């Protein structure tokens, strides 16, 4: 299902709506911030990135036990950077893909298809951070 806002307004509006909804429906504070110069992207980018952020936020809600989550989008003319950071319990990043879940693996392969890069870091008791970067041509 493609949210209408994504088609109409692009990533900034759609992610902002999504985070507002998650914020309202969970005990965790979910905050979205956009920085930089907003421009619409190719549709495959917009959809792919939206799905990625959805999965990362859902994971934080399901697994992190955090009380705060920041989703950040920084857009410059030739660069797009997305960050999802929670202050939850953290997890063992080296064990990704070893369980039953497929979410993070599909996040990784989506990013690869879009020629992007992801760095995941997590510390027990402190939280997890997902940082994703694309060069925009």
């Amino acid at each position, binding site marked *: 299902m493609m949210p209408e806002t994504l088609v109409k307004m692009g990533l900034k509006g759609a992610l902002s709506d999504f985070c507002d909804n998650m914020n309202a429906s969970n005990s965790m504070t979910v*905050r979205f*911030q956009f*920085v*930089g110069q907003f421009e619409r992207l190719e549709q495959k980018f917009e959809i792919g990135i939206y799905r990625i952020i959805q999965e990362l936020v859902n994971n934080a809600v399901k697994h992190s036990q955090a009380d705060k989550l*920041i989703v*950040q989008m*920084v857009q*410059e003319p030739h*660069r797009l*950077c997305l*960050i999802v*950071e929670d*202050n939850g319990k953290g997890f063992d990043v080296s064990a990704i893909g070893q369980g039953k879940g497929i979410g993070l693996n599909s996040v990784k392969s989506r990013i690869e298809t879009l020629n992007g*890069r992801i*760095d995941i*870091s997590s510390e027990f008791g402190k*939280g997890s*951070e997902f*940082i994703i*970067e694309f060069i925009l041509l």
Partner: protein
Amino acid sequence: MYYRSLSVTFVFLLFQMPNILIVEDHPVVVEGLQKLLCDKGITANCLVANTVKDCLLTLNVITPDLILLDYNLPDGNGLDLCKTILNMKPFMKILAISSYKEQSLVMQMMENGAMGYVLKNASEGEIIEAVTVVLSGKKYLCEETQNILNKKNSNHSILTRRELEVLKFISDGFTNPEIADKLFISPLTVDSHRKNLIVKLDAKNTASLIKIAFQNKYL
């Protein structure tokens, strides 16, 4: 008999009154606050800590109902102290009382878990209101702080925990690979954070980034 019941009432009142810890190094401000809180019948139980160290020592032995927290302290700042306190006592009610009007500082303070922010030049009425509201468990911002936060074109966004760490290391003069080593992230990621910080703080380069970060009390 009369005296006895009077003192019993007095002791009883003391028990009913909230314990308030004032963390502030300027004696004049401390006295002003103590007098105000006492005159308005909020509390007669004001504890005082002049330094970060004092504050933490006090909190080891007593859990006040409210902490009034200044930003500038001789051995640290209220921003970090706020976090430290909440790590020790997650339900502590903290009201920041400060003369700083930077939007970024107010936002960081609230982000770090303060329940209220009131400026030192606020009216007595507002300070009392702030104390009462926060004591009751609700958030409070004095009028001027609300205006500061509502200002349009607020290009200062919240920095993430990681961004603050990276910023600190950049200002200490570490290179990308060194910072990467310290934080267990890739040098490319450090560079992403650096670029994001430059956009977020509206800086031109790393040197001006550090300057702006200082001006806005991120460092």
